[in-house]
């Protein structure tokens, strides 16, 4: 007779659920316990504050949290997708805070709150998510804003790309502050807070297929302290705008059209760092069309231009501000470039994706 060994049936026989691993899984988007754990252990760890941690479906802003009398609400919303998520000088977290903070700041407003929604792809590393959240926390602290409402969803693998972040910014501005893209006047001076194109080249570089190395860093930064200080010191600022996608040229073409003016730039005065210029020369790209994430165009009357420039140079992110052009006349909206050779050409909007030239 054969000896049989029988399994021990005295303890639990039902398989224990696996503890969550280091990756996002579909269960994190279930709305159940795993979602709750992710929110408490990961999101609140970095972004937590009294309003967010209250755990309600929405945030209530009243009393000292709401806009004071004499101020109007300013709101902006922006979705952030970037490949790769981490690049020299920043990541999608810093970008998603600074991008929206800057959009609110460009009306001369003081950004106060952000909301954020996160679309996570199944399989995304929780460690990378934590790095992104840590840099959001750092950018929020620098800008002086808090995230007061947040949401997270998980898609199946392949239905999104690692991490998308959509943020909405809320701030307030004095009722009489008229800063707007349609306020450029003939005679105004055009200033830029610093050199152009660094973000665009840093991201291209981080994609790793350029075949050369450079140490260009993205300029991703919150500009609200610079712009608020400027608006307070120079109430006659007409236009503030951050030249993000499409670059300086596309942004100024938009402003020229909104204001119905012709703007002339002086090529010699436009600051571009040498590594950025060299990369552009090699790739056949035009730095005037490269994205920036920490620069502001300031348009204001000629009389205050020099003082405003001096003020900007004394502030963080404005240290190398330059006067780059002038609003020359009323028109249907045109951007001209006076080249270093003394000739003139038209600058247009970027048509579509910027494509490297073949030779």
């Amino acid at each position, binding site marked *: 007779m054969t000896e049989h060994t029988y399994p021990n049936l005295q303890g639990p026989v039902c398989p224990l659920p696996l503890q969550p691993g280091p990756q996002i899984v579909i269960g994190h988007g279930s709305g159940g316990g795993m979602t709750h754990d992710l929110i408490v252990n990961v999101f609140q760890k970095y972004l937590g504050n009294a309003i967010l941690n209250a755990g309600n479906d929405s945030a209530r802003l009243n009393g000292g949290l709401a806009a004071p009398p004499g101020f109007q609400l300013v709101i902006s919303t922006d979705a952030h997708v970037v490949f790769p998520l981490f690049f020299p000088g920043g990541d999608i977290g810093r970008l998603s805070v600074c991008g929206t903070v800057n959009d609110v700041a460009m009306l001369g407003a003081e950004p106060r709150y952000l909301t954020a929604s996160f679309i996570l792809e199944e399989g995304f590393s929780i460690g990378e998510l934590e790095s992104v959240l840590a840099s959001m926390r750092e950018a929020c602290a620098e800008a002086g804003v808090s995230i007061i409402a947040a949401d997270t969803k998980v898609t199946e693998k392949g239905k999104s790309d690692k991490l998308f972040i959509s943020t909405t910014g809320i701030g307030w501005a004095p009722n009489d502050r008229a800063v707007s893209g349609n306020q450029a006047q003939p005679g105004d001076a055009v200033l830029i807070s610093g050199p152009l194109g660094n973000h665009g080249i840093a991201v291209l570089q981080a994609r790793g297929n350029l075949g050369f190395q450079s140490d260009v860093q993205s300029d991703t930064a919150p500009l609200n302290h610079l712009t608020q200080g400027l608006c307070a010191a120079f109430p006659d600022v007409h236009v503030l705008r951050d030249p993000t996608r499409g670059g300086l040229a596309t942004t100024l073409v938009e402003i020229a059209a909104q204001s119905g003016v012709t703007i002339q730039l002086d090529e010699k005065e436009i600051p571009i760092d040498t590594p950025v210029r060299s990369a552009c020369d090699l790739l056949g790209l035009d730095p005037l069309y490269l994205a920036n994430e920490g620069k502001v165009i300031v348009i204001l009357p000629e009389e205050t231009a020099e003082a405003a420039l001096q003020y900007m140079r004394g502030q963080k992110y404005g240290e190398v501000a330059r006067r780059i052009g002038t609003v020359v006349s009323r028109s249907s909206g045109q951007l001209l470039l006076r080249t270093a*050779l003394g000739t003139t050409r038209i600058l*247009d909007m970027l048509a579509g994706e910027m494509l490297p030239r073949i030779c």
Partner: protein
Amino acid sequence: MSLSSSELFRSAELTRLLAGEIRQAVTRPWNIMEICGGQTHAILQYGLDQLLPPEITLIHGPGCPVCVTSLEAIENALQIAHLPEVIFTSFGDMLRVPGAKANLFSARAEGADVRVVYSPLDAVKLARENPQKQVVFFAIGFETTVPSIAASVLHAERNQITNFSILPANVLVPPAMHAILQSPDNRVNAFLAAGHVCAVMGYWEYEAIAARYRAPIVVTGFEPVDLLRGILMTVRQLESGRFVVENAYSRAVTREGNLAAQEMIKQVFEPVDRQWRGIGIIPLSGLGLRPRYADFNALQRFPLTRQSPMESPLCIAGQVLRGNATPHDCPAFGRECTPASPLGAPMVSSEGACSAYYRYQRVKA
């Protein structure tokens, strides 16, 4: 003060001096064609035409490689790109070039796997990394891109990477110069030859062309100072009745060129008749794979349906590419046809004449 070389060749002072010398040298009207789209782009980007005396007309040549790639080649590319097993790779500015109805961007939006590479060797790398896929590289461009394409074929052969192929569509400069000079409505008196093409091929081949058609040819670079120096040397030849090949780009170009690159091209490719978009078939103006490398020909690897695509009737790209019309002559320019929705290829690439005009001189001065 010391200047970097790019600052030196963009120097405002030197350009002013050269423009002054050109004005002094010129006594009669001359039509000078810059072959290369990169030169057209630089001329308009820096506004060099504004510095020239009215006697000199610059005619923009057919030297934008994406512009002259035939409609048929683009339709073949689209068919191949749509095959489910294919990763289709291309230089970036080819993606927006319109075929009869679609371009490679729209193919990508419809689900085709279309990727931009900076070098054909990157496509070979993709092939090695994706053995279950077929990786196809769209071989376009003038003599400048051919050496790296030849190298990619040799590299794939050496490493037995059998899932790599190319769609051959390269074109050659000298046959196009013959075609332009032989055309009955030719207006071109002289050429600026493309410096980067000559860096590969040398310029000995141009000597017969200059002599046969009594047309000066000056090998010219791409910076403002290079271009004006090339124009000045051309004008001096024209004014004194000389017609030889001169080299205004000696920092990059020798008469013989890059012999190793030429050898590699000769090993992999042979001259074939080729269709130029808007121009027609130019004899022996293209490069096809030699029989030994026929396995790397995507046209043979994939079953394709033949088609006879039609150009937009509004577009006068052919005349622009032949130098017989400027973009301003086109009724669709800036209206139906813009860089965002181009009707013809010269509006697509930043090297294309229509695109360069649209970007820099939309309003006729």
